[in-house]
Protein backbone atom coordinates (compact mmCIF):
# COMPACT_ATOMS: atom_id res chain seq x y z
CA UNK A 1 0.00 0.00 0.00
CA UNK A 2 3.07 2.14 0.06
CA UNK A 3 2.37 2.61 -3.56
CA UNK A 4 -0.82 4.49 -2.93
CA UNK A 5 0.68 7.08 -0.61
CA UNK A 6 3.31 7.71 -3.20
CA UNK A 7 0.65 8.42 -5.80
CA UNK A 8 -1.14 10.74 -3.40
CA UNK A 9 2.00 12.67 -2.71
CA UNK A 10 2.63 12.93 -6.39
CA UNK A 11 -0.92 14.10 -6.97
CA UNK A 12 -0.54 16.83 -4.40
CA UNK A 13 2.64 18.08 -5.91
CA UNK A 14 0.92 18.52 -9.24
CA UNK A 15 -2.25 19.92 -7.80
CA UNK A 16 -2.30 22.93 -10.09
CA UNK A 17 -1.14 21.08 -13.16
CA UNK A 18 -4.21 21.03 -15.36
CA UNK A 19 -2.40 19.22 -18.12
CA UNK A 20 0.33 16.76 -17.40
CA UNK A 21 2.16 15.06 -20.22
CA UNK A 22 4.51 12.32 -19.16
CA UNK A 23 7.08 10.46 -21.18
CA UNK A 24 5.18 10.94 -24.39
CA UNK A 25 6.45 9.29 -27.54
CA UNK A 26 4.88 9.59 -30.95
CA UNK A 27 5.77 7.80 -34.12
CA UNK A 28 4.26 7.43 -37.54
CA UNK A 29 4.07 4.22 -39.47
CA UNK A 30 5.14 4.98 -43.00
CA UNK A 31 5.78 3.17 -46.21
CA UNK A 32 9.42 3.29 -47.12
CA UNK A 33 9.71 1.67 -50.48
CA UNK A 34 6.86 -0.24 -51.99
CA UNK A 35 5.03 -2.28 -49.40
CA UNK A 36 7.37 -2.18 -46.41
CA UNK A 37 6.48 -0.04 -43.46
CA UNK A 38 8.72 1.55 -40.88
CA UNK A 39 8.23 3.67 -37.83
CA UNK A 40 9.29 7.28 -37.87
CA UNK A 41 9.80 8.66 -34.40
CA UNK A 42 8.79 12.30 -34.14
CA UNK A 43 8.39 12.85 -30.40
CA UNK A 44 10.35 11.00 -27.76
CA UNK A 45 10.42 11.05 -23.94
CA UNK A 46 8.54 14.30 -23.73
CA UNK A 47 7.22 15.53 -20.39
CA UNK A 48 5.54 18.84 -19.77
CA UNK A 49 3.00 20.45 -17.47
CA UNK A 50 0.56 23.29 -17.99
CA UNK A 51 -0.72 24.88 -14.80
CA UNK A 52 -3.93 26.70 -14.11
CA UNK A 53 -3.55 30.45 -14.26
CA UNK A 54 -0.27 30.25 -16.12
CA UNK A 55 0.90 30.69 -19.65
CA UNK A 56 3.28 28.03 -20.82
CA UNK A 57 5.07 28.86 -24.02
CA UNK A 58 6.22 25.98 -26.15
CA UNK A 59 9.05 27.31 -28.26
CA UNK A 60 10.74 25.41 -31.03
CA UNK A 61 11.58 25.49 -34.70
CA UNK A 62 9.49 23.78 -37.34
CA UNK A 63 9.89 20.04 -37.09
CA UNK A 64 10.56 20.12 -33.37
CA UNK A 65 7.27 18.39 -32.64
CA UNK A 66 5.41 21.26 -31.03
CA UNK A 67 2.41 21.12 -33.36
CA UNK A 68 2.24 17.35 -33.12
CA UNK A 69 2.07 17.61 -29.35
CA UNK A 70 -1.07 19.73 -29.66
CA UNK A 71 -2.53 17.25 -32.12
CA UNK A 72 -1.85 14.49 -29.61
CA UNK A 73 -3.55 16.41 -26.81
CA UNK A 74 -6.56 17.19 -28.96
CA UNK A 75 -6.76 13.65 -30.33
CA UNK A 76 -6.55 14.70 -33.96
CA UNK A 77 -3.55 12.63 -35.02
CA UNK A 78 -3.83 10.71 -38.29
CA UNK A 79 -4.58 7.02 -38.04
CA UNK A 80 -1.03 5.92 -38.79
CA UNK A 81 0.24 7.61 -35.64
CA UNK A 82 1.36 5.57 -32.66
CA UNK A 83 1.20 7.27 -29.31
CA UNK A 84 2.89 6.06 -26.11
CA UNK A 85 3.06 7.64 -22.70
CA UNK A 86 0.54 9.48 -20.64
CA UNK A 87 -1.56 12.59 -21.12
CA UNK A 88 -3.41 13.62 -17.97
CA UNK A 89 -6.06 16.30 -17.79
CA UNK A 90 -7.22 17.44 -14.37
CA UNK A 91 -5.68 14.35 -12.83
CA UNK A 92 -7.26 11.90 -15.25
CA UNK A 93 -5.54 9.99 -17.98
CA UNK A 94 -7.11 10.94 -21.29
CA UNK A 95 -8.30 8.30 -23.72
CA UNK A 96 -9.04 9.08 -27.34
CA UNK A 97 -12.72 9.29 -26.49
CA UNK A 98 -12.07 11.71 -23.61
CA UNK A 99 -10.11 13.92 -25.96
CA UNK A 100 -12.95 13.98 -28.44
CA UNK A 101 -15.41 14.83 -25.68
CA UNK A 102 -13.25 17.54 -24.16
CA UNK A 103 -12.06 19.36 -27.22
CA UNK A 104 -14.01 22.44 -28.06
CA UNK A 105 -15.46 22.46 -24.55
CA UNK A 106 -12.76 22.08 -21.88
CA UNK A 107 -9.83 22.18 -24.27
CA UNK A 108 -9.84 24.76 -27.04
CA UNK A 109 -7.50 25.31 -29.93
CA UNK A 110 -6.80 28.63 -31.55
CA UNK A 111 -5.63 27.39 -34.93
CA UNK A 112 -2.94 28.84 -37.11
CA UNK A 113 -5.03 29.64 -40.15
CA UNK A 114 -8.56 30.13 -41.36
CA UNK A 115 -8.48 26.81 -43.13
CA UNK A 116 -9.62 25.39 -39.81
CA UNK A 117 -12.86 27.37 -40.06
CA UNK A 118 -15.87 26.02 -41.91
CA UNK A 119 -15.68 27.76 -45.30
CA UNK A 120 -19.45 27.68 -45.76
CA UNK A 121 -20.44 29.19 -42.44
CA UNK A 122 -20.59 32.84 -41.53
CA UNK A 123 -17.89 34.04 -39.20
CA UNK A 124 -20.13 35.08 -36.31
CA UNK A 125 -21.81 31.67 -36.09
CA UNK A 126 -18.46 29.98 -35.87
CA UNK A 127 -17.14 32.34 -33.24
CA UNK A 128 -20.21 31.84 -31.07
CA UNK A 129 -20.38 28.12 -31.66
CA UNK A 130 -23.17 25.96 -30.34
CA UNK A 131 -25.09 27.64 -27.52
CA UNK A 132 -28.10 26.76 -25.46
CA UNK A 133 -31.44 28.22 -26.40
CA UNK A 134 -32.15 31.54 -24.77
CA UNK A 135 -28.52 32.44 -24.49
CA UNK A 136 -28.07 33.39 -28.13
CA UNK A 137 -28.67 37.09 -27.60
CA UNK A 138 -26.24 37.22 -24.74
CA UNK A 139 -23.59 35.45 -26.76
CA UNK A 140 -24.25 37.68 -29.74
CA UNK A 141 -23.71 40.72 -27.55
CA UNK A 142 -20.52 39.28 -26.12
CA UNK A 143 -19.29 38.48 -29.61
CA UNK A 144 -19.97 42.05 -30.78
CA UNK A 145 -18.04 43.39 -27.81
CA UNK A 146 -15.09 41.14 -28.47
CA UNK A 147 -15.14 41.99 -32.15
CA UNK A 148 -15.08 45.66 -31.22
CA UNK A 149 -12.15 45.11 -28.92
CA UNK A 150 -10.38 43.35 -31.75
CA UNK A 151 -11.08 46.14 -34.16
CA UNK A 152 -13.30 43.97 -36.33
CA UNK A 153 -16.03 45.92 -38.05
CA UNK A 154 -19.64 44.74 -37.62
CA UNK A 155 -19.78 43.59 -41.25
CA UNK A 156 -17.08 41.02 -40.51
CA UNK A 157 -19.72 38.98 -38.67
CA UNK A 158 -21.52 38.29 -41.88
CA UNK A 159 -18.43 37.45 -43.91
CA UNK A 160 -17.31 33.99 -44.89
CA UNK A 161 -13.79 32.84 -43.94
CA UNK A 162 -12.32 33.32 -47.43
CA UNK A 163 -13.27 37.00 -47.39
CA UNK A 164 -11.05 37.74 -44.40
CA UNK A 165 -7.60 39.22 -44.80
CA UNK A 166 -4.69 37.59 -42.97
CA UNK A 167 -4.71 39.87 -39.95
CA UNK A 168 -8.48 39.89 -39.69
CA UNK A 169 -8.58 36.11 -39.83
CA UNK A 170 -6.13 35.89 -36.97
CA UNK A 171 -8.22 38.22 -34.84
CA UNK A 172 -11.35 36.20 -35.60
CA UNK A 173 -9.57 33.00 -34.58
CA UNK A 174 -8.40 34.48 -31.30
CA UNK A 175 -11.88 35.74 -30.53
CA UNK A 176 -13.27 32.21 -30.88
CA UNK A 177 -11.06 31.15 -27.98
CA UNK A 178 -11.92 34.22 -25.95
CA UNK A 179 -15.59 33.30 -26.35
CA UNK A 180 -15.20 29.68 -25.38
CA UNK A 181 -15.49 28.50 -21.79
CA UNK A 182 -12.41 26.29 -22.14
CA UNK A 183 -10.03 25.75 -19.24
CA UNK A 184 -7.09 24.67 -21.33
CA UNK A 185 -6.43 26.88 -24.30
CA UNK A 186 -3.88 25.89 -26.88
CA UNK A 187 -2.81 28.71 -29.14
CA UNK A 188 -0.98 27.59 -32.26
CA UNK A 189 1.44 30.18 -33.72
CA UNK A 190 -0.65 33.29 -33.14
CA UNK A 191 2.05 35.83 -33.93
CA UNK A 192 2.98 35.74 -37.63
CA UNK A 193 1.14 38.34 -39.61
CA UNK A 194 0.12 40.46 -36.66
CA UNK A 195 1.34 44.01 -36.42
CA UNK A 196 2.75 45.16 -33.13
CA UNK A 197 -0.44 46.65 -31.81
CA UNK A 198 -2.63 43.64 -32.61
CA UNK A 199 0.11 41.36 -31.37
CA UNK A 200 0.25 43.05 -27.99
CA UNK A 201 -3.52 43.02 -27.80
CA UNK A 202 -3.70 39.35 -28.64
CA UNK A 203 -1.08 38.56 -26.07
CA UNK A 204 -2.91 40.57 -23.45
CA UNK A 205 -6.08 38.62 -24.14
CA UNK A 206 -4.17 35.42 -23.61
CA UNK A 207 -2.89 36.85 -20.35
CA UNK A 208 -6.48 37.66 -19.37
CA UNK A 209 -7.54 34.12 -20.01
CA UNK A 210 -4.74 32.88 -17.79
CA UNK A 211 -5.63 35.36 -15.06
CA UNK A 212 -9.16 34.02 -15.09
CA UNK A 213 -7.74 30.65 -14.18
CA UNK A 214 -7.30 28.95 -17.51
CA UNK A 215 -4.13 27.21 -18.47
CA UNK A 216 -2.80 28.64 -21.71
CA UNK A 217 -0.34 26.82 -23.92
CA UNK A 218 1.25 29.14 -26.43
CA UNK A 219 2.84 27.26 -29.29
CA UNK A 220 5.27 29.48 -31.13
CA UNK A 221 8.66 29.79 -32.75
CA UNK A 222 8.75 33.44 -31.76
CA UNK A 223 10.62 33.59 -28.50
CA UNK A 224 10.17 37.35 -28.16
CA UNK A 225 6.40 37.11 -28.13
CA UNK A 226 6.60 34.22 -25.71
CA UNK A 227 8.77 36.23 -23.34
CA UNK A 228 6.29 39.10 -23.22
CA UNK A 229 3.53 37.19 -21.48
CA UNK A 230 4.53 33.67 -20.53
CA UNK A 231 5.34 32.37 -17.10
CA UNK A 232 7.36 29.40 -18.25
CA UNK A 233 9.02 28.56 -21.50
CA UNK A 234 9.48 25.01 -22.69
CA UNK A 235 12.12 24.72 -25.37
CA UNK A 236 11.44 21.99 -27.93
CA UNK A 237 14.08 20.49 -30.15
CA UNK A 238 13.93 17.44 -32.38
CA UNK A 239 10.85 16.02 -30.70
CA UNK A 240 11.72 16.48 -27.07
CA UNK A 241 11.89 19.18 -24.39
CA UNK A 242 15.42 20.32 -23.71
CA UNK A 243 14.58 22.86 -21.07
CA UNK A 244 11.73 24.42 -19.17
CA UNK A 245 12.89 27.83 -18.04
CA UNK A 246 11.28 30.69 -16.18
CA UNK A 247 10.86 33.91 -18.08
CA UNK A 248 13.22 35.72 -15.69
CA UNK A 249 16.05 33.45 -16.82
CA UNK A 250 16.11 35.13 -20.21
CA UNK A 251 18.35 38.13 -19.66
CA UNK A 252 21.83 39.46 -20.43
CA UNK A 253 23.87 36.85 -22.26
CA UNK A 254 21.58 34.07 -21.17
CA UNK A 255 23.92 32.89 -18.45
CA UNK A 256 20.97 31.82 -16.30
CA UNK A 257 19.67 29.54 -19.01
CA UNK A 258 20.39 25.90 -18.40
CA UNK A 259 20.68 24.35 -21.84
CA UNK A 260 23.19 25.40 -24.53
CA UNK A 261 20.42 25.34 -27.13
CA UNK A 262 18.28 27.78 -25.17
CA UNK A 263 21.29 30.02 -24.79
CA UNK A 264 21.95 29.84 -28.51
CA UNK A 265 18.31 30.67 -29.23
CA UNK A 266 18.49 33.69 -26.95
CA UNK A 267 21.74 34.93 -28.41
CA UNK A 268 20.46 34.57 -31.96
CA UNK A 269 17.80 37.23 -31.49
CA UNK A 270 18.48 40.35 -33.56
CA UNK A 271 18.26 42.60 -30.51
CA UNK A 272 20.82 40.44 -28.72
CA UNK A 273 23.91 39.14 -30.48
CA UNK A 274 22.29 37.91 -33.72
CA UNK A 275 24.74 35.07 -33.47
CA UNK A 276 23.93 31.81 -35.23
CA UNK A 277 25.33 28.48 -34.17
CA UNK A 278 26.08 26.09 -37.00
CA UNK A 279 24.26 22.98 -38.08
CA UNK A 280 20.69 21.77 -38.29
CA UNK A 281 18.11 20.10 -36.16
CA UNK A 282 18.44 16.35 -36.91
CA UNK A 283 15.92 15.11 -39.44
CA UNK A 284 13.11 12.91 -38.26
CA UNK A 285 14.51 9.81 -39.90
CA UNK A 286 18.04 10.38 -38.63
CA UNK A 287 18.76 8.12 -35.72
CA UNK A 288 20.40 9.94 -32.83
CA UNK A 289 21.72 7.74 -30.05
CA UNK A 290 22.74 10.34 -27.54
CA UNK A 291 21.59 13.86 -26.83
CA UNK A 292 19.63 15.30 -29.78
CA UNK A 293 21.67 18.49 -29.60
CA UNK A 294 25.04 16.67 -29.55
CA UNK A 295 26.16 17.70 -33.05
CA UNK A 296 25.77 21.40 -32.39
CA UNK A 297 26.72 21.61 -28.73
CA UNK A 298 29.86 23.40 -27.56
CA UNK A 299 29.76 21.70 -24.18
CA UNK A 300 29.53 18.13 -25.42
CA UNK A 301 31.62 15.32 -24.08
CA UNK A 302 31.82 11.61 -24.66
CA UNK A 303 28.95 10.82 -22.32
CA UNK A 304 26.56 12.95 -24.40
CA UNK A 305 26.84 10.73 -27.47
CA UNK A 306 25.73 7.70 -25.47
CA UNK A 307 22.18 7.69 -24.26
CA UNK A 308 19.71 10.50 -23.74
CA UNK A 309 20.64 12.76 -20.81
CA UNK A 310 18.45 12.51 -17.72
CA UNK A 311 16.10 15.30 -16.69
CA UNK A 312 17.51 17.50 -13.94
CA UNK A 313 15.82 20.14 -11.84
CA UNK A 314 17.93 23.25 -11.48
CA UNK A 315 17.01 26.71 -10.17
CA UNK A 316 13.28 26.18 -10.49
CA UNK A 317 13.58 24.93 -14.03
CA UNK A 318 14.05 21.62 -15.78
CA UNK A 319 16.83 20.67 -18.17
CA UNK A 320 17.93 17.63 -20.11
CA UNK A 321 21.68 18.03 -20.22
CA UNK A 322 24.66 16.21 -18.75
CA UNK A 323 26.81 19.26 -18.33
CA UNK A 324 24.92 21.56 -16.03
CA UNK A 325 25.03 21.80 -12.29
Amino acid at each position, binding site marked *: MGNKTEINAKGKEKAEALLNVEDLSLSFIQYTSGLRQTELKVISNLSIQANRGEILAVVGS*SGSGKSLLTHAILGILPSNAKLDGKIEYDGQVLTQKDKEDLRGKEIALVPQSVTYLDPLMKVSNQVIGAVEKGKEDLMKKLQREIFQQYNLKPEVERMYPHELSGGMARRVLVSTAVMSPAKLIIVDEPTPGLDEKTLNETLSYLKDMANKGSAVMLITHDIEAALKISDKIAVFYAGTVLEVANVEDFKNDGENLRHPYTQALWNALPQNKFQAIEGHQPMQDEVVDGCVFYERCYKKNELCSKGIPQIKKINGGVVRCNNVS
Partner: protein
Amino acid sequence: MSLKGENISFGYKKNNLILNNVSISLDRGDVLGLIGDSGSGKSTLCKILAGYENNYQGKVSIDGKEVPKKGYNPVQLVFQHPEKSVNPKWKMKDILNEGSNISQDILDSFGIKKNWFNRWPNELSGGELQRFSLARALGPETRYLIADEITTMLDAITQAQIWNMVLDIVKERNIGVLVVSHEKNLIEKICHKVVYFKDINNVKHY
Protein backbone atom coordinates in the same frame (compact mmCIF):
# COMPACT_ATOMS: atom_id res chain seq x y z
CA MET B 1 22.24 51.10 -60.94
CA SER B 2 18.89 50.82 -59.23
CA LEU B 3 15.48 49.18 -59.21
CA LYS B 4 12.82 51.83 -59.12
CA GLY B 5 9.11 51.75 -58.54
CA GLU B 6 7.55 55.11 -59.35
CA ASN B 7 4.06 56.34 -58.48
CA ILE B 8 2.65 52.87 -58.13
CA SER B 9 -1.06 52.52 -57.43
CA PHE B 10 -2.96 49.30 -57.14
CA GLY B 11 -6.41 48.22 -56.09
CA TYR B 12 -8.93 45.51 -56.86
CA LYS B 13 -11.66 48.13 -56.86
CA LYS B 14 -11.28 51.65 -58.17
CA ASN B 15 -12.30 53.45 -55.01
CA ASN B 16 -10.45 51.12 -52.69
CA LEU B 17 -6.76 51.38 -53.39
CA ILE B 18 -4.28 49.16 -51.59
CA LEU B 19 -1.30 51.09 -52.88
CA ASN B 20 -1.55 54.75 -53.68
CA ASN B 21 1.26 56.58 -55.40
CA VAL B 22 4.06 54.57 -53.85
CA SER B 23 7.62 55.28 -54.92
CA ILE B 24 10.58 53.26 -53.83
CA SER B 25 14.15 52.90 -55.04
CA LEU B 26 16.64 50.13 -54.34
CA ASP B 27 20.30 50.47 -55.30
CA ARG B 28 22.54 47.54 -56.09
CA GLY B 29 24.54 46.49 -53.10
CA ASP B 30 22.08 48.18 -50.77
CA VAL B 31 20.16 46.47 -47.99
CA LEU B 32 16.97 48.46 -47.61
CA GLY B 33 14.48 47.73 -44.88
CA LEU B 34 10.74 48.19 -45.35
CA ILE B 35 8.71 48.08 -42.16
CA GLY B 36 4.96 47.80 -42.25
CA ASP B 37 1.97 46.09 -40.73
CA SER B 38 0.47 42.97 -42.14
CA GLY B 39 -2.31 43.56 -44.62
CA SER B 40 -0.98 47.01 -45.45
CA GLY B 41 -0.05 46.08 -49.02
CA LYS B 42 3.65 45.41 -48.61
CA SER B 43 3.35 42.03 -50.25
CA THR B 44 1.48 43.52 -53.18
CA LEU B 45 4.24 46.06 -53.66
CA CYS B 46 6.80 43.25 -53.61
CA LYS B 47 4.85 41.35 -56.24
CA ILE B 48 4.63 44.39 -58.47
CA LEU B 49 8.35 45.08 -58.18
CA ALA B 50 9.15 41.47 -59.05
CA GLY B 51 6.79 41.42 -62.03
CA TYR B 52 4.21 39.02 -60.53
CA GLU B 53 1.37 41.49 -60.79
CA ASN B 54 0.73 43.44 -63.94
CA ASN B 55 -2.49 45.33 -63.38
CA TYR B 56 -1.06 48.35 -61.65
CA GLN B 57 -0.51 51.98 -62.44
CA GLY B 58 2.93 53.51 -62.35
CA LYS B 59 6.29 52.36 -63.54
CA VAL B 60 8.82 49.77 -62.49
CA SER B 61 12.25 50.10 -64.04
CA ILE B 62 15.84 48.96 -63.73
CA ASP B 63 18.34 51.66 -64.60
CA GLY B 64 15.55 53.53 -66.33
CA LYS B 65 14.65 50.60 -68.56
CA GLU B 66 11.54 48.49 -68.30
CA VAL B 67 11.97 45.06 -66.73
CA PRO B 68 11.78 42.37 -69.46
CA LYS B 69 8.58 40.34 -69.23
CA LYS B 70 10.10 37.14 -70.58
CA GLY B 71 13.18 35.23 -69.54
CA TYR B 72 14.99 35.27 -66.23
CA ASN B 73 13.91 38.20 -64.11
CA PRO B 74 16.85 39.99 -62.48
CA VAL B 75 14.46 40.84 -59.63
CA GLN B 76 13.72 37.72 -57.61
CA LEU B 77 11.13 37.49 -54.88
CA VAL B 78 11.27 35.12 -51.90
CA PHE B 79 8.15 34.53 -49.82
CA GLN B 80 7.25 33.97 -46.22
CA HIS B 81 6.04 30.39 -46.61
CA PRO B 82 8.73 28.29 -48.29
CA GLU B 83 6.50 25.22 -48.39
CA LYS B 84 4.24 27.06 -50.84
CA SER B 85 7.17 28.10 -52.99
CA VAL B 86 8.11 24.58 -53.97
CA ASN B 87 6.25 22.09 -56.12
CA PRO B 88 5.42 19.19 -53.78
CA LYS B 89 5.83 16.74 -56.65
CA TRP B 90 9.42 17.72 -57.33
CA LYS B 91 12.56 16.50 -55.65
CA MET B 92 14.73 19.06 -53.93
CA LYS B 93 17.54 19.03 -56.49
CA ASP B 94 15.11 19.81 -59.30
CA ILE B 95 13.60 22.60 -57.25
CA LEU B 96 17.00 24.06 -56.53
CA ASN B 97 18.22 24.07 -60.12
CA GLU B 98 15.00 25.17 -61.79
CA GLY B 99 16.30 28.58 -62.82
CA SER B 100 19.99 27.92 -63.24
CA ASN B 101 22.61 25.57 -61.94
CA ILE B 102 23.27 26.92 -58.48
CA SER B 103 26.96 27.01 -57.73
CA GLN B 104 28.58 24.91 -55.04
CA ASP B 105 29.68 28.11 -53.29
CA ILE B 106 26.12 29.14 -52.64
CA LEU B 107 25.15 25.65 -51.49
CA ASP B 108 28.07 25.64 -49.09
CA SER B 109 27.35 29.03 -47.66
CA PHE B 110 23.68 28.13 -47.13
CA GLY B 111 24.71 24.85 -45.53
CA ILE B 112 22.63 22.86 -48.03
CA LYS B 113 23.67 19.24 -47.78
CA LYS B 114 23.91 16.90 -50.78
CA ASN B 115 21.88 14.24 -49.02
CA TRP B 116 18.85 16.53 -49.02
CA PHE B 117 18.80 16.55 -52.81
CA ASN B 118 16.82 13.37 -53.28
CA ARG B 119 14.24 14.23 -50.69
CA TRP B 120 10.71 15.50 -51.24
CA PRO B 121 9.76 18.93 -49.92
CA ASN B 122 7.52 17.51 -47.19
CA GLU B 123 10.49 15.75 -45.65
CA LEU B 124 12.32 19.00 -44.93
CA SER B 125 11.57 21.61 -42.30
CA GLY B 126 10.61 25.19 -43.08
CA GLY B 127 14.11 26.46 -42.40
CA GLU B 128 15.67 23.97 -44.77
CA LEU B 129 13.12 24.71 -47.49
CA GLN B 130 13.74 28.43 -47.14
CA ARG B 131 17.46 27.86 -47.75
CA PHE B 132 16.57 26.12 -51.00
CA SER B 133 14.19 28.90 -52.01
CA LEU B 134 16.88 31.51 -51.39
CA ALA B 135 19.61 29.57 -53.15
CA ARG B 136 17.28 29.10 -56.13
CA ALA B 137 16.54 32.82 -56.22
CA LEU B 138 20.23 33.74 -56.12
CA GLY B 139 21.11 32.54 -59.61
CA PRO B 140 23.96 34.25 -61.45
CA GLU B 141 21.63 36.70 -63.23
CA THR B 142 19.91 37.93 -60.09
CA ARG B 143 20.58 41.62 -59.38
CA TYR B 144 17.89 42.40 -56.84
CA LEU B 145 16.40 40.25 -54.13
CA ILE B 146 13.08 41.03 -52.50
CA ALA B 147 12.71 39.24 -49.21
CA ASP B 148 9.07 39.34 -48.08
CA GLU B 149 9.05 38.27 -44.43
CA ILE B 150 11.34 35.39 -45.29
CA THR B 151 12.25 34.46 -41.72
CA THR B 152 8.96 35.27 -40.01
CA MET B 153 8.07 31.60 -39.72
CA LEU B 154 11.52 30.49 -38.59
CA ASP B 155 13.15 30.16 -35.21
CA ALA B 156 15.74 32.69 -34.07
CA ILE B 157 18.80 30.56 -34.79
CA THR B 158 17.71 29.69 -38.31
CA GLN B 159 16.79 33.33 -38.86
CA ALA B 160 20.26 34.46 -37.84
CA GLN B 161 21.88 31.71 -39.93
CA ILE B 162 19.91 32.61 -43.04
CA TRP B 163 20.41 36.35 -42.82
CA ASN B 164 24.11 36.07 -42.15
CA MET B 165 24.47 33.92 -45.27
CA VAL B 166 22.29 36.14 -47.43
CA LEU B 167 24.11 39.28 -46.36
CA ASP B 168 27.48 37.72 -47.21
CA ILE B 169 26.35 36.65 -50.65
CA VAL B 170 24.67 39.90 -51.61
CA LYS B 171 27.69 41.87 -50.47
CA GLU B 172 30.02 39.75 -52.56
CA ARG B 173 27.80 39.87 -55.64
CA ASN B 174 26.64 43.44 -55.26
CA ILE B 175 22.97 42.49 -55.12
CA GLY B 176 20.37 44.94 -53.84
CA VAL B 177 18.07 43.55 -51.14
CA LEU B 178 14.69 44.82 -50.04
CA VAL B 179 14.05 43.41 -46.57
CA VAL B 180 10.33 43.49 -45.89
CA SER B 181 9.34 42.72 -42.34
CA HIS B 182 7.25 43.81 -39.41
CA GLU B 183 10.10 43.08 -37.01
CA LYS B 184 11.87 46.32 -36.22
CA ASN B 185 14.68 44.62 -34.33
CA LEU B 186 15.64 42.51 -37.29
CA ILE B 187 15.52 45.37 -39.77
CA GLU B 188 17.54 47.65 -37.55
CA LYS B 189 20.14 44.94 -37.20
CA ILE B 190 20.70 44.11 -40.87
CA CYS B 191 19.66 47.08 -43.02
CA HIS B 192 21.63 50.11 -44.15
CA LYS B 193 18.51 52.20 -44.58
CA VAL B 194 14.96 51.87 -43.31
CA VAL B 195 11.69 53.00 -44.86
CA TYR B 196 8.35 52.93 -43.08
CA PHE B 197 5.65 51.68 -45.39
CA LYS B 198 2.99 53.99 -44.01
CA ASP B 199 5.21 56.95 -44.93
CA ILE B 200 5.37 56.03 -48.61
CA ASN B 201 1.86 54.66 -49.11
CA ASN B 202 -0.85 57.31 -49.14
CA VAL B 203 -3.70 55.06 -48.11
CA LYS B 204 -5.60 55.17 -44.86
CA HIS B 205 -6.19 51.82 -43.19
CA TYR B 206 -8.51 50.81 -40.48
